[in-house]
């Protein structure tokens, strides 16, 4: 039994079958990659996990509980965080505030009326936020408005926000897209460190095979809304169907 | 030297506060009031031709200001909102040291400002306010109303309506849904029912309404043969225009010609209704033609019209007349009392009988501070010669006919209280 169990999930958009009969089991504290051609339904699947979309049929169990019917913030409080394909950050806030908010959410729950305390006096949260920013090499940008970051930096910031929550399950939708090689490598290192601690489960969508193969324990290949194969990285690399439909001559 | 009351004038001048609507729908009416105030101040200070001071029955005033102090004035904008009006009045009292506030073009504002003046200890000489409440439920010892009221309108109109349309009529009322509208409707309903008219329906219309078609349309089919529009200002212009559009003027009902009645007229607003007002009866506090048409019982009128017309180029409205008269009356009362103390002034005004201000013999009744004088019943002219000559006078109902007991049920519940000199 994995920490995440997706069973027979279907999702249609009008006539389009974005997901059909998707089954997926993610083992606790493993890194599970989902790859597949563009439009295969990868992001749609993640949307179903975090309450952004509700599957037409099927079930999604996380940590023994169903996530279906829960609001996004409740699902997050269960321990699922997500990095989006197009960065979702608080553009009007500073980089530092961007990472403090998830830490508050983790500590105080989905709502707390702390209207007369001072942000600056929350020592532990400030320190934690600093540490998180240091991890992603963004400490010197802490007072910039998030909206004025370059694309790659936005993506790093969003990663930091999710990591700061120490979620049980971290969903990463193309975390390194648009990142410079050097930072991609840093990110791989960072994720590998996390992986080494073995206390976070990660589900990663990525088109950069270098990233996928450096991190993943298992890989699911999704094509046209259905899982094509699921296996270890080595097996996937050599899989002819995958090569043809996805990797092309590069692999 | 006067002292011991709010804003006792200490220097060689005395300040009056003229609080009129300068913005909003009644701005033109307010502008006319302001003209009259300025004219009155001129006359009090001995400038110009003296206007009604020449005809006024009291000769306490000599044109040297009030009690020898030159009259100065400040102005403000009521916006026809009780809040704004009170703010403006307070600034006149607190900042400019006004000893008297006058003006306004709505009963809500009048009541609100009257209450303020009572608390602050200055005299309020109401401008245009027609609701029974101003000198009824909401009367105040420091407040005085020269203008007539809804009850008086109704009493004056009733005999005329009977003469014009008979005593077997079915009336349909449209009423502006606020204090004034209600008292107007209540009064006219009572008066017409006393004639034997039947009231078919009374529909309250929102003050903010601009199109009355959905209220007018069902009228013809309701069995009524008279439509009473208890509307004023923009409401009146629009509802009357709509009624005419729907052909009510030419219609017949119950075998009679259908009729429209507008109990309270305003010349300024009538202008907005254009030719639609032709033949429609209503009442006024005063009309600039009254002395010419009904003789010198109404003396003062021509003097005022002359003086105003020469200065501004057109005849004054009843709003202007009332504000002018109120200013003169106040000044005269101070002069007679020999003091600006509101209590002394009130005493001088209470029960005061005067003449020569254009309304014929008039009484400022002591028990409720309401003026009693003749009420002018008018009709829209069929072929007006110019935009100032829109109504013809049907008759002037003598004051006795419209006088009522201060405890009359439409006026009951109020308490004049004590005069308050403030400080």
């Amino acid at each position, binding site marked *: 039994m994995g920490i995440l169990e997706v069973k027979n999930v279907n999702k249609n958009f009008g006539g389009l079958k974005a997901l059909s009969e998707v089954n997926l089991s993610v083992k606790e504290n493993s890194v599970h990659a989902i790859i597949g051609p563009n439009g295969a339904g990868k992001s749609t699947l993640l949307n179903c996990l975090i309450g952004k979309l509700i599957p037409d049929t099927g079930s999604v169990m996380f940590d023994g509980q169903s996530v279906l019917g829960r609001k996004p913030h409740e699902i*997050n409080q269960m321990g699922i965080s997500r990095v989006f394909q197009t960065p979702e950050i608080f553009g009007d806030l500073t980089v530092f505030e961007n990472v403090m908010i998830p830490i508050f959410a983790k500590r105080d729950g*989905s709502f707390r009326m702390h209207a007369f305390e001072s942000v600056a006096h929350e020592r532990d949260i400030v320190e934690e936020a600093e540490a998180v920013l240091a991890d992603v090499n963004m400490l010197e940008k802490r007072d910039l408005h998030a909206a004025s970051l370059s694309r790659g930096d936005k993506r790093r910031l969003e990663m930091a926000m999710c990591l700061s929550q120490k979620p049980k399950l971290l969903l990463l939708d193309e975390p390194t897209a648009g990142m410079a090689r050097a930072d991609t490598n840093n990110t791989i290192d960072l994720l590998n460190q996390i992986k080494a601690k073995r206390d976070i489960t990660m589900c990663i969508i990525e088109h950069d095979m270098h990233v996928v193969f450096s991190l993943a324990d298992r890989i699911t290949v999704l094509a046209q809304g259905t899982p094509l194969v699921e296996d270890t990285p080595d097996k996937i690399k050599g899989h002819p169907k995958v090569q043809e439909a996805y990797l092309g001559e590069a692999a | 030297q006067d002292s011991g009351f709010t804003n006792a004038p200490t220097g060689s001048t005395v300040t009056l506060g003229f609080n009129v609507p*300068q913005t909003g729908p009644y701005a033109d009416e307010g502008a006319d009031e302001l003209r009259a105030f300025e004219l009155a101040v001129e006359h009090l200070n001995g400038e110009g031709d003296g206007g009604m001071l020449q005809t006024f029955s009291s000769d306490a005033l000599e044109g040297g200001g009030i009690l020898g102090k030159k009259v100065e004035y400040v102005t403000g904008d009521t916006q026809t909102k009780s809040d704004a009006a009170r703010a403006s009045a307070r600034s006149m009292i607190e900042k400019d040291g006004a000893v008297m506030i006058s003006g306004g073009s709505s009963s809500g504002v009048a009541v609100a400002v009257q209450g303020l003046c009572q608390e602050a200890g200055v005299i309020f000489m109401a401008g245009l306010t027609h609701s029974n409440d101003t000198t009824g439920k909401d009367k105040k010892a420091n407040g005085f109303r020269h203008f007539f009221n809804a009850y008086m309108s109704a009493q004056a109109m009733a005999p005329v309506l009977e003469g014009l349309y008979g005593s077997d009529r079915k009336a349909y009322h449209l009423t502006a849904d606020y204090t004034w509208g209600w008292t107007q409707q209540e009064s006219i309903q009572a008066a017409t029912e006393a004639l034997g008219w039947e009231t078919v329906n009374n529909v309250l219309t929102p003050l903010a309404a601009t199109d009355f078609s959905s209220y007018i349309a069902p009228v013809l089919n309701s069995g009524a043969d008279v439509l009473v529009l208890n509307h004023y200002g923009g409401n009146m212009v629009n509802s009357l225009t709509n009624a005419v559009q729907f052909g009510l003027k030419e219609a017949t009902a119950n075998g009679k010609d259908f009729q429209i009645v507008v109990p309270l007229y305003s010349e300024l607003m009538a202008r907005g209704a254009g030719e639609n007002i032709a033949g429609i009866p209503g009442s006024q506090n005063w009309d600039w033609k009254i002395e010419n048409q009904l003789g010198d019982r109404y003396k003062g009128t021509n003097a005022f019209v002359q003086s105003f017309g020469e200065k501004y180029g057109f005849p004054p409205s009843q709003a202007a007349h009332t504000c002018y008269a109120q200013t003169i009356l106040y000044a005269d009362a101070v002069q007679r009392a020999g003091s600006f103390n509101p209590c002394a002034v009130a005493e001088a005004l209470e029960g005061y009988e005067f003449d020569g201000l254009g309304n014929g013999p008039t009484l400022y009744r002591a028990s409720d501070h309401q003026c009693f004088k003749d009420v002018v019943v008018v009709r829209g002219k069929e072929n007006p010669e110019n935009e100032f000559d829109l109504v013809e006078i049907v008759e002037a109902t003598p004051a006795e006919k419209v006088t009522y007991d201060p405890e009359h049920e439409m006026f009951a519940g109020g*308490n004049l209280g004590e005069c308050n000199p403030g400080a």
Partner: protein
Amino acid sequence: MLGLNTKDTWLLVIVALMTLFAPFLLNPFPANSSLAQFNAGYPDLMQRFVIFGIFAIGFNILFGLTGYLSFGHAAFLGVGSYAAVWMFKLLGYNVVPAIILSVIVGAVFALLIGFISLRRSGIYFSILTLAFAQMSFALAYSVLTPITNGETGLQVYTSDPQYFQRSGAPDIPHFFGLEMRATETLRMGGWSFDINAGYYLCAAVLLVAFYMAIRLFRSPFGMMLRAVKSNQQRLNYTGLNARPYTLAAFVISGMYAGLAGGLMASMDPLAGAERMQWTASGEVVLMTILGGAGTLIGPVLGAGFIKYFENIFSKINDGVLHGWFGFLPDGIENVLVTVVHPFVGKGWHLTLGLLFMLVVIFLPGGLVEGGQRIGKYVFRRRGRKAGGAEAEAARKQPAE
């Protein structure tokens, strides 16, 4: 101090000093000079400045932080006023229960309206709040007259019970015997200054309200509200429930509005229905934007700006103009009066409209931004002289 950082402490101190000395600051011209017209230091206007300041501060907590533009905030001000007057009618003229009830009633109303309206966002939210407020206004004006006294406005009558009005207590609103209207006029040379009890009560309340707003702006709660404005989706996916945050902000700002309403009735015991009309709601929106939405002091400045024009400019008539220009030859005097005439007195709206336009066009971000720019400009020039400008510009460039 008081749990604020230095900058905020300074801000608070400055505001405190300004409110404390307002009677003097606002009456800079000798009472008999022709410029006395521009003096704003009389009780009514000073009270209005602070009361609308409170209203705008509260509005800004909602709008400035969350970006939810309520177009019906005047409704809370209105119910606050009604509640206060009812307290006068039932209990007596002490303002304390009146003010307390007005805050509570403001909160309850805001909770109801907010709970429903916050189901929608953006313009849909604005129109929902507008609709509720307009309904309240229309009903208060007509059907609810027994409670609101309709067009005239709710007043205290001598026949009202006033169960707790002790004999000997003032017959007008008072604070444990201190009449709100009590005014001491100080005359110094040609100047005269009004020290008014009601004003200082309002000013004290303003300071508390302002202090709480600072705390709130700097609190985690305030940060969450800004996050709502920035990206509500993200907030939800971060595990925070945006609804209770926005609702709490809505209720708090409703309480500020109720408080303002209560104070208004305490200074002048009459509650008019027009207080709830959309124009009144629009006014607080304008005040906030004009001053600078999302800034702490902006709304207060905006409130002062609008109230100043309404009360001072509307009172300048031709007579006053002739007074000013009287020293000039007649011809010039008349020309000047004719030129200025459309902008003052009954033309005060025109001036206000023009100023609205000029402020937004030239000072995006409102008066506060304008102030900052001027500050920066002055600072720069000084800096340049000292040769620091280049250094500063260099620092601005990306590192290396």
